[in-house]
């Protein structure tokens, strides 16, 4: 039996675990893909990580070590929808990978942390082939392929340096949220052999929104009469607030062969010293940037801090004809140059006859020629409430164009919508919110209305607030109180013989007087008087709790007088007892009619005495 219970317990636990795992796995799915799957050294492949599922808070992927690649963030897009009350989110993270060497690389599974749970994507494989000559890295040549970028800050070394780094910015005075292109140049003249790939640590970016700018640029340049191979890494910095800010030091850790190459003796002596290279850290100088506030003059109404150039706004509706209650998807797309992620959602105006919901947004970033631009997409669901012809007014975005140093307003074209009266079918298509491709029409609907009753009673006071109900609540209490009284009397009757005799005295007397009356009617005069005597004397014996034989008419009269009984009643009692005695001793003189009269008088007198002495 114990074994059976144990087995069942494990079975139940096992089923719970399986069910739990299934539910857990169904919640979120993570997928990774790479495109293209074959790329040249120095080329670019897009690593895409898609996360879908029922979660509310976004999280960032935990990428495995990618030592053989330059990695750049290339934008994130997000959509969410409400389906059956559940939040369904979809986030796509894009990274550009630029391989440093040939080979086949397996990018290990990418992990994703959401809340307390960790999810894992599939691994992806990338084949890297040798670069075609002249594509990315120019062949060794005495002439530089391209001049370095304009230099605002420089930390060029002395003439003897064979390897060094230098950081520059394209401009040191900008407006808030205007792009600053920071460039790290890694210079080497080929006289120093690196034993390991350089390890680059970017500078601090406090106060800035930062975007990596792929691809890495390589070219030759001549400094101090020597030819240097320059590898440039660029980043875009967008300052968040006015003031003077610093872009910190960047660091490149390298391991160099400090003894030259080719000599076996050197190699041995190097091994005997216990080392095969010298670690060095190359650092750039900290760069100062002055960030100006946006001008107050000419600031348009509705300006929400957007800083960009060449903004273009479009607004599209997924349908031009709809019924009342039928959702319409509106997409507002904003294209331009600048940090498009910071654009806030424009407000749809003139849609008072619609219910409106924001259903998602996404951003696609482009980094052509090291200039950040992008496409910001906002999605809305509007649900018409009434029929008619409607025109959704143009969406306007006020922005500051740093290139032109002035405020501008971009606006879309209006969107026209024709709304027909609602139908039952449309009523079933109630949707709260959806997002882009994830928009779903629910098939569930509320249950139908109830029919109108033949008559509608006006509400009165509920029964529990009526006076009769309040009064009825006292009934059980009264009943209990009565029961207590009755029980107390019953107990006294059981325990107090005097009380019991007194309580039944009149009833017994009545019973005997009835017997006496019956005897008189039957002509049994002597028997009738005897019964009457027993009734009257017995009554007083019971009342006084004494034996009947101990009472005479005089003792009864004395007892009654002590009880302050009516004298007339006392006389009647005496007369009755006397008549009974007379009849017992001179039976021949007794008459039945007299007996009946006396019995009647006795009943009345005893009842009256009972009332008086009770």
């Amino acid at each position, binding site marked *: 039996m114990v074994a059976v219970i144990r087995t069942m317990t494990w079975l139940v636990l096992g089923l719970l675990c399986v069910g739990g795992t299934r539910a857990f796995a169904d919640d979120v799915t993570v997928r990774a893909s790479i495109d293209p799957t074959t790329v040249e050294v120095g080329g670019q492949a897009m690593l895409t990580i898609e996360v879908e599922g029922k979660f509310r808070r976004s999280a960032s992927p935990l990428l495995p070590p990618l030592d053989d690649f330059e990695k750049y963030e290339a934008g994130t897009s997000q959509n969410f929808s409400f389906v059956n*009350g559940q939040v369904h989110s979809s986030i796509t993270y894009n990274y550009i990978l630029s391989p440093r060497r040939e080979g086949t690389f397996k990018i290990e599974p990418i992990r994703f942390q959401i809340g307390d749970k960790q999810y894992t994507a599939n691994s992806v494989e990338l084949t890297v082939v040798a670069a075609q000559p002249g594509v990315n890295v120019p062949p060794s040549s005495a002439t530089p392929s391209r001049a370095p970028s304009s230099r605002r800050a420089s930390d060029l070394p002395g003439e003897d340096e064979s390897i060094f780094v230098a950081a520059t910015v394209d401009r040191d005075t900008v407006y808030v949220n205007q792009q600053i292109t920071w460039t790290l140049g890694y210079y080497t003249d080929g006289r120093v052999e690196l034993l390991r790939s350089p390890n680059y640590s970017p500078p601090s970016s406090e106060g800035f929104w930062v975007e990596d700018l792929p691809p890495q640029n390589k070219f030759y340049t001549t400094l101090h009469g020597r030819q240097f191979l320059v590898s440039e890494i660029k980043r875009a910095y967008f300052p968040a607030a006015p003031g003077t800010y610093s872009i910190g030091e960047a660091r490149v850790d390298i391991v160099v062969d400090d003894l030259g190459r080719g000599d076996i003796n050197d190699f041995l002596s190097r091994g005997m010293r216990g080392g095969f290279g010298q670690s060095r850290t190359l650092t750039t100088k900290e760069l100062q940037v002055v960030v100006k506030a946006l001008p107050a003059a000419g600031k348009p109404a509705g300006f929400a801090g957007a800083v960009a150039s060449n903004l273009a706004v479009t607004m599209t509706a997924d349908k031009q004809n709809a019924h009342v209650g039928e959702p319409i998807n509106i997409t507002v797309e904003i294209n331009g140059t600048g940090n498009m992620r910071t654009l806030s959602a424009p407000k749809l105006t003139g849609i008072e006859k619609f219910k409106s919901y924001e259903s998602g947004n996404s951003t696609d970033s482009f980094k052509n020629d090291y200039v950040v631009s992008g496409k910001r997409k906002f999605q809305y669901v509007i649900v018409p*409430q009434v029929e008619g012809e409607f025109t959704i007014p143009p969406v306007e975005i006020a922005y500051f164009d740093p290139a032109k140093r002035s405020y501008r307003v971009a606006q879309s074209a209006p969107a026209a919508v024709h709304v027909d009266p609602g139908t*039952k079918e449309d009523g079933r298509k109630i949707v709260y919110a959806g997002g882009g491709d994830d928009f779903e029409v629910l098939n569930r609907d509320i249950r139908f209305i109830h029919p109108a009753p033949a008559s*509608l009673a006006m509400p009165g006071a509920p029964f529990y607030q009526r006076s009769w109900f309040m009064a009825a609540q006292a009934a059980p209490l009264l009943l209990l109180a009565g029961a207590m009284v009755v029980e107390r009397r019953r107990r006294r009757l059981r325990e107090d013989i005097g009380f019991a005799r007194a309580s039944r005295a009149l009833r017994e007397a009545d019973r005997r007087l009835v017997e006496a009356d019956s005897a008189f009617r039957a002509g049994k005069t002597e028997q009738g008087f005897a019964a009457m005597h027993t009734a009257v004397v017995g009554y007083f014996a019971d009342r006084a709790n004494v034996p009947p034989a101990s009472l005479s008419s005089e003792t009864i009269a004395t007892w009654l007088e002590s009880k302050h009984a009516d004298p007339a009643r006392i006389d009647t009692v005496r007369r009755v007892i006397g008549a009974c005695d007379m009849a017992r001793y001179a039976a021949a003189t007794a008459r039945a009619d007299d007996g009946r009269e006396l019995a009647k008088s006795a009943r009345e007198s005893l009842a009256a005495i009972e009332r008086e002495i009770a």
Partner: protein
Amino acid sequence: MKRLACTLVVAALALGVTGRATAADADRPEALFAAGNSAYEAGAYADAIDRYTETVRAGVVNADLYYNLGNAYFKTGDLGRSVLWYERALRIEPRSDDTRANLAMVRSLLRDQQLMPAQGGVRNAALSWHRRLTAGESVLVACAFYALFTIAVLMLVFRRTRFVQSIYRVASWISPARLFGLTMSQDLVLGMVITAVFALVFAGSANAKIRDSKVAQRAVVVTQEVAVYSGPSEDATIQFKVHEGTVVAVGDGRSGWVRVDLPGDLSGWVEERMVERI
């Protein structure tokens, strides 16, 4: 000619009477209710709301009416008022499957999912009976236990009488006390305690419902988004925002503001016009 004139007069009077009767009929709550249903079935949900609302204004308190009004608001996308009228319908008919199903569906579409009443749990299971009874039903159940308590006391008082003993002999077959070998007196005392406890519990439930029916203790957010401030003023800090359809517990009021409490020890003040008491 005279006969024709009489006929016309009679016909005119008849038409007048009929016209007045028709107008009067149309204003009857039953007719308004039926007109609301017709508008709803035709897809004119805004009209249906108008008809139903007129019926409510006429003083009708009816669960079906409130349910239909909740449906009509749902169809127009006004989820807040839909929740409001379903909740009001449930106060009259707490066991209505239709209302519960529709309310559950509307709730699944609301934004503040984390503020929805928790499902399951021991406490919910223990209080489910309370939610499924009207105030009147709770009163009746409390009265029934009160009556049983009274009977138990009477039987205890008169336990020595043959009548009570004969009743007990029959009734004791359903008493679990027999399993524990209790005497008649002990059994009756146990019965008194149990019935008294149940009577008090249901009386408490009834009291809570009656108090709630006099001054609503809960309200529904009926605007799309409401800022909850730390104090009864727009100068106070906005602590968080709640959205339409969220049910809040309402407390004290102060010059157009009302204090609200939400699950998770969330509390603050909102403008009273943003919420409607259930």
